[in-house]
């Protein structure tokens, strides 16, 4: 069964002018049907304004469809009685780490979610410890979040979601504001989560390097799914991606440039190892 499923999902909002009068309707998500399997690592990419964040916000009932249906773990997101269950099942992490942390101490922040769910105290502590260990932040448990780096703060945010024991975690550009090591830390933590904790990951990003290891990539454009497939399938279409205002990983781009210079290389090279192997065949 799919952990997240959408059927003919359409989301429209009314644009208003300064006086608050209606000034047209914008269709941000346009007839999207998809199914995400439990345990998969899914990436959603697309240019600014392509509808990817709007789509993501349907996955934990922050937004509700104008038309069509979204199910999270079998629950229809339009049914109000399910909302809290849905948000516990599918947690969300946003771009700016400073807007997501509320606690004065790291472990208090992580415990906030389960406490709100009415989890017994002893169980909260257990979950806080496990969640912080899962993202490699346990040694910072008694620190003030203010003194942490951006990457560390994002990992605390992820631990906060984990402590709710979700089956699925949606990350909306979690690395956009981070420096290179922060980015590495967060992506590493997310991958670990997927592989060892078997949490379904839905990662939205503008960094193509971050999605090489995804099981499946959706490329959004004009509110629709313009392309989908494995990273290799997607990144072998360099020109199509560039038309959609996107990029390919640098290794893939380098292989593409070498092909343009007349070298015979396979399509969709994704890692340095693959490139080295292909090139040593030519040497």
């Amino acid at each position: 069964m799919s952990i997240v499923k959408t059927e003919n999902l359409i989301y429209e909002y009314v644009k208003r002018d300064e006086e608050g009068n209606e000034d047209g309707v914008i269709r941000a998500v346009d007839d999207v049907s998809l199914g995400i399997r439990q345990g998969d690592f899914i990436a959603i990419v697309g240019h600014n304004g392509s509808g990817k964040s709007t789509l993501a916000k349907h996955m934990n009932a922050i937004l509700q469809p104008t038309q069509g249906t979204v199910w999270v773990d079998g629950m229809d997101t339009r049914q109000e009685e399910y909302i809290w269950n849905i948000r516990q099942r599918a947690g969300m992490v946003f771009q700016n780490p400073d807007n997501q942390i509320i606690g004065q101490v790291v472990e208090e922040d992580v415990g906030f979610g389960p406490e709100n769910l009415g989890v017994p105290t002893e169980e909260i502590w257990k979950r806080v410890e496990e969640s912080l260990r899962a993202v490699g932040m346990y040694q910072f448990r008694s620190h003030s979040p203010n003194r942490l780096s951006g990457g560390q703060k994002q990992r605390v945010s992820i631990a906060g979601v984990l402590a709710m024991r979700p089956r699925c975690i949606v990350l909306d550009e979690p690395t956009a504001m981070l420096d290179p090591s922060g980015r590495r830390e967060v992506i590493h933590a997310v991958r670990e989560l997927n592989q060892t904790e078997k949490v379904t990951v839905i990662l939205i990003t503008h960094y193509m390097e971050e999605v090489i290891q995804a099981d499946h990539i959706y490329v959004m454009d004009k509110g629709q799914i313009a392309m989908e497939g494995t990273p290799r399938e997607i990144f072998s279409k360099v020109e199509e991606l560039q038309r959609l205002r996107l990029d390919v990983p640098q290794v893939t781009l380098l292989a593409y440039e070498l092909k343009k210079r007349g070298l015979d290389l396979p399509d969709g090279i994704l890692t340095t190892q693959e490139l080295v192997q292909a090139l040593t065949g030519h040497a």
Partner: protein
Amino acid sequence: MKLPRQERNKMALTVEHVSYIYDPDAPLSHKALDDISLTIPEGQFIGVIGHTGSGKSTLMQHLNGLVKATSGHIYYGGRDIDARDYDKKELRSKVGLVFQYPEHQLFEVDVFSDVCFGPKNLGLERGEVERRAREALAKVGVPEELYDQSPFDLSGGQKRRVAIAGVLAMQPEILILDEPTAGLDPKGRREILDQIRQLQTQTHITILLVSHSMDDVAEYVDRIIVMNGGKIVYDDIPRKIFKCYRELEKMGLGAPQVTYILHTLKENGLPVDTDITTIQEAADSIMQALDSFRITGP
């Protein structure tokens, strides 16, 4: 470093032994800048890299007088910016600072008025204000059709251009951009950087680009300043900076991906130039290395 006065005059900006301490009297006092000395000549395109908290933004805020150094001096056009008679307002129009996510600071009803705000505040007459706004918008590639639109209806990339135009309209001699591409899609990232490069080559304005993207700085700038723990640890051309990629990694940074690829290729016996930092150069170097193999054999 202490430059003679006439040398200083030739520099757009000179920073001499600047330190900055947060809350010097508090128990948690923290040295954000530690004895920084730096010269910035006119017309250079400079990248500034460093992990979050390394002091980059604090240093940038010193350069246009938003923050006053705890010790040391900053000279702009040869004059000490902390001198009592120095006009800070003029400094801020000459050293333009574009903050991170500058579109959050857009506020006017239409694009054109928003860009007019800065020059209007300089007390210029209306004709001049509008001339400058037009020129600035053209420089960042915002088409005239958008002038009457609300800035809030624009795309992410366009909003950011309008915000940059707002600073450019003050006609700064130095433009500091704090992560101008954060959060933009790959194409938007490239468009903004191409536009900045064009601006720089056409007007010879000095540009400081603060960035977390090693790929971007490698591709665009002439010189890179690396900050760590409030100090400048490296200051050199991109090729030389990324030679030290192992050290950069220890500082939470790294090298452009292509540099890593070339190192791996070399370790595997392909004689490529590992100092290369851009894709085009890398492709050329690999083709050359393969050719030399074909002629001479491994």
